[in-house]
Each structure stands twice: as C-alpha cells, then as structure tokens.
C-alpha cells in the first residue's frame, strides 16, 4: 500500500519537473537572449555561440531537459551547474543559490504548522465544549475564527509590524522583528527561534482558524452519532466521551488536513518572508520574480513541487499508521 503511494509519487515528480522546464522555455528566445538582453548585439557571434554551447543550448530540447534534470542529482561540477542554469543576478549556480535559502523557510513553515495544529485543535475542542454549554460564547468564538480565516496573512503581518514598531508596544511586549539575527551577530538557532516567532504566529493564523473550524464541525458531527448516546447512557462522563471517543475519531481527517496544509503554509510564507525580511525561499522567489531571474524561478517551482509531493506522501503514510482500517 505504502509502496504503491511511493511509486505513484514518481510520475508526479516527473510531471512537475516537466512543467517547470516547459514554463522556462515558454518564453521566446533562449536563456542567453534573456540574460544578455539588448547587449548581445554588441557581442561577437562566436562568443554567443560558445556561450550557448556552454549552457547546452545547441542540443535538442529533450536532451536539454535531461541535462537540466540531471543537474539536480549530480554532484557539483561546472557542467551540472550550467545545466541547471546560473542566477542572472550574480552568476552563481542555481542549486547553490536555492539550497542556502531552504533552512529558514522550512523552520518557519514547521513552526507555523506546529502552532496552527496545536492551537487549532485546542480552540476547536473549546468551541465544541462551548457549543454544548453556552451557545452564545460558541457563536462568538466561531465568528472570530471565521473573521481570522478571511483576513489575508500579509495584512495581519504588516499591521502587527506597525504595532511592534510603534511606541505603544514597547511597554507591552518586546519581540525582535525583521531578519533572522541581530545585525552583526553570528546566526544561531536561538536567535532564529526568537526572530521567527511572530512571523510563524501570523503565518499560522488562517490555518489555525481553519483547523479549529474543521475540528468543531467534525466533532459536532461525531457527537450526533449513536455510539455517543450509548456511551453517555452507559454512564460515562461527557469529558471522557469527548476525549476518548470523539477526538480519536476526529484525528484521522485532521492528520490528512495537516498534509494538505503544507502547500498553503509554504505559499503563505512567500509574502510573510518578504514582509519580515526572512532570508528564505519565498523571498528569493519574490526577488527572482521581479528580476525575471528565470533559472532560479524554475528551480524554485521544481523544489516547491517536490516538497509538497513528499509532504503529501508523508501524510498518506502517517494516515496508514494511525488508521488501522486503511491497512487492509
């Protein structure tokens, strides 16, 4: 079963790579044209030809694609660096430019995932309990969650930023903002945790609201099932019915949602990183979009696709582990 899922992921990865390669070549003109712009008119024809040869552009598109693909797995040498392309901005190989940005993004998204699911689960449970005890309070919580869900992340981000920068906040909280470490200091994990806290909270806000609303809907649905009445009639307390039976049954769809949340969180990290100046993949993405830095852009599309496919695979496998019904 798990093996079948893994095998199904391979053609997906292949297609994602094909799409990102095709997008890069959808533009009229080849990378050399784009890189040199109008200045190529001033270059001698042999030099241009040599440059094209160096980038492997004299070969057939299929061969170029294979070369580009092999650039990802091959060890670092000049040929593979050229196959993946070089950043138009500073001429460094795409692989190098992208890889140094991965840790910041993964940390941010990981922390945001953790926050959104722990807080979301807690708020969802709270809302279910309120629904049974005090309808008005439940409506208020639900309305607040819906409002949070419909607020764009980047808007919350710069409102929070403005608040922290204002003189009023200094007395309330002191959180470092912008970047990953104090200027001049060596980057370290402790600094990163401190600096990424606010971006992660804001990044997780929409997801958290979604998880809470989802858990609420699932749990209320479960509560209307017959086994709940029989458990209550048997004399179990409401608390133990909720924690032992209802929540257990809600866990499987929630794990599924966690896998599906990753694309949304990774996508959201693009704007959050840009606003909070986090040196991650998302900011690289925005920089490359503005600089029309196509080799980096396509490398990022490929990498983002790969991360999402692997995350979905992981969610599938996890689901298999926690849900015995799926193992048959």
């Amino acid at each position, binding site marked *: 079963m798990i093996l079948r899922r893994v095998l199904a992921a391979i053609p*997906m990865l292949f*297609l994602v790579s094909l799409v990102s390669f095709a*997008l890069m070549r959808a533009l009229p003109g080849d990378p050399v044209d784009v890189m040199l712009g109008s200045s190529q008119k001033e270059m001698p024809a042999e030099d241009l030809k040599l440059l094209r040869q160096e980038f492997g552009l004299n070969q057939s598109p299929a061969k170029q694609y294979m070369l580009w693909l092999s650039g990802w797995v091959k060890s670092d040498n000049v040929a593979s660096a050229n196959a993946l392309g070089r950043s138009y901005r500073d001429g460094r190989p795409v692989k190098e430019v992208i890889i140094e940005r991965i840790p910041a993004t993964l940390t941010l998204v990981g922390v945001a995932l953790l926050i959104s699911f722990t807080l979301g689960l807690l708020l969802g449970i709270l809302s279910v*309990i309120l629904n049974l005890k005090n309808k008005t309070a439940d409506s208020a919580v639900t309305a607040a969650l819906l409002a949070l869900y419909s607020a764009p992340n980047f808007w919350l981000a710069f*409102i929070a930023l*403005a608040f922290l920068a204002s003189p009023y906040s200094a007395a309330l909280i002191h959180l470092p903002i912008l970047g990953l470490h104090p200027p001049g200091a060596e980057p370290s994990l402790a600094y990163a945790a401190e600096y990424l806290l606010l971006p992660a909270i804001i990044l997780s806000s929409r997801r958290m609201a979604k998880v809470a609303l989802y858990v609420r809907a699932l749990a209320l649905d479960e509560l209307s099932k017959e086994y709940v009445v029989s458990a209550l009639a048997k004399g179990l307390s409401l608390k133990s*019915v909720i924690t032992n039976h209802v929540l257990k049954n809600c866990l499987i769809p929630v794990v599924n949602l966690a896998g599906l949340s990753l694309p949304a969180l990774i996508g959201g990290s693009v704007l959050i990183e840009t606003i909070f100046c986090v040196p991650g993949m998302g900011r690289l993405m925005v920089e490359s979009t503005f600089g029309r830095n196509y080799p980096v*852009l396509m490398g990022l*599309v490929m990498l983002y*696709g790969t991360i999402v496919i692997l995350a979905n695979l992981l969610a599938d496998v996890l689901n298999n582990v926690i849900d015995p019904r799926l193992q048959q």
Partner: protein
Amino acid sequence: MNSAKMTAIKKNPIAARKTGPKVNTKLIAGAVCLGLLMLIALSPLFSNLILPIFGLTIEPPISNLSAVNLAPSLNLPHILGTDALGHDLVKMIAYGALGSLSVGLCSALVAVTLGNIWGAAAALAGGAIDSLMMRLVDALLAVPSIILLLTLSSILSAPELVEHFPPFLLKALGVTNYTDGLLPYFIVILAITATTWLESARVARARVLAIKEEDFFLAAQALGSSFIELLSKHLLPALATTAVVEGTLLVSDAIIMESGLSFLGLGLGPSTPSWGSMLKDAQSCLTAGNWWAAVIPGLLICFTVLSVHMLGEGFFASKRARGKIPS
C-alpha cells in the same frame, strides 16, 4: 445529569429529530452583504456613466497634497480620511472595489468554465487521455498556488512575450507606446485563472464519472439520446450546481490572490486601484501612526471574503437539502 450532557444527547438524531425547513440565514446574509459590496463597486461606474446624464459629476480620486494623511473624522468631505497622497479614502475604496471585485468575478468565471470543460472532457474521454489530463492537473496542484501565480505573472508580463501578443488584443487592452493600459489587468486575471481552475477540474471529473454510472443516464443512453442531448439535458445541469458553489468560493480566493499580487507590486498597475494596491501604498506610512489607510481596505477584504464564503456555503446547504448535490 448536567445540562451539557443533555444538550449532547439532544443533538443526537435518535433523541430528537430536527424537522421542518430551516431558514437559510447564511445564504441570505451572504447575498445581502455581497449585494452591498457590489453596490460599492458599481458606484464609480454609476458616477461615470449615469450621473452625468443628469448633469451631476463625482470626481474620481485625485491626489491633493494639501490634505495628506487626514485622520477619519465626521467633517466633510473626507469622512474616512485621506491617504499619503491625499486621495479621499471613500472614493479610493469605491474604485478599489471595482478593481478587486471585477478581478475576483472574472477570474472565477473563467477558471470554473475552463475547469469544468477540462474535467468533463477527461471523464468522457476516459482511459489514457483521462489519466494524462488529470495527472497534469495533479502536477500543477502540487506547486503552491502563489508560486505558480508569481511565476506566471512574471512570464506573462515579460516584454519578450508581450511583443508576441496578437496586435488586436493589445489594441483592445489599450496598450500604446506610452501606457500599458489594461494589460496588467489582463495578465493578473490570466495568472489567477491558470492557478485556480485545477480544483474545479477535479470536482467536475468526479461528478461526470458519477453521473455516467447513474440509472437515468444509462437509460437515456439506451433510449438513443444523442451526445448533444445527453450533454445539455443531463450533464450540464448537474455540473452547473457545483460550478456555482465552486465559483463563489473561487471569487474570494481570487480577491485574496489579487491583493497579494498588488501588495507585491505585480497587480493591476498604477492606473487601476484595488484594495491590495491601497494596502501596498498604506504600508509605508503605517509606522507613522496613520492606521486608517491600511486598516480599512484590509477590513473590506475580510468582509468580502466572509460574505462570499457565507453565500457559497448557504447555497451549498440549500442545494444539498434538496438533494441536488451528493453529500
């Protein structure tokens, strides 16, 4: 037995069956809110096209450097205050609503149409064509939508590509040597559509596959209905219901996407204001304590997304209650 326990039991269908039709409050509230927003969005058109007939005019927002960053107050003429360039916020909101909502509606419309055609075609074709078409959708879905959105908007607006656009299109969009006209508008809609049609293609395919197995469809086939008849009488009506629900939810997605793009500066261009571009402009003066220019458009985006969401959910619930959508 405490009261919470009683409620838990009362929730149960065996203990107490809920009967009778329920007023669909979500549908009504969503429709009313959205109607209100449409009214705001249409007000610039109204003031440009209809009021002049009666000899009245409302000036579009113009920058007024003698009245920058005015706080909201009850004093006319700037009830909601002005932004950093002295634009009246009430007018900016109306013009921004036109930009944001029209992008949302257009791209949702195109995306749902494209998605449904693609999904239905895949389901009807079946076999290898079906799996090829759907694997492509899966692959595109694996890339987070904003990544695809940024890439596409970068590629589509590349000068090398724009040169190859057909001349009639450029003329229709009002592109000249001096101005981009509506080109950024067109590109934003194209990019948003290209990233949002995927989910509806999946839903449409599943729906058509299900209908293909149903008795009424098999009966119609056996009775010799032509393909056109099958399509127009059985498939399209079934798809239309789900398409409306998807479409409304896509509108809110598209509005958020547009605001994100505009916020980054890849949006509708300087000639077409939108709530997203208002947020972008307001960001710079927010630290000076001028919160209104940043807070009001953001709240409006929330409000729109919320009402679109309610409308979609209400519509879904009412259709499901009537059995038009399988639960």
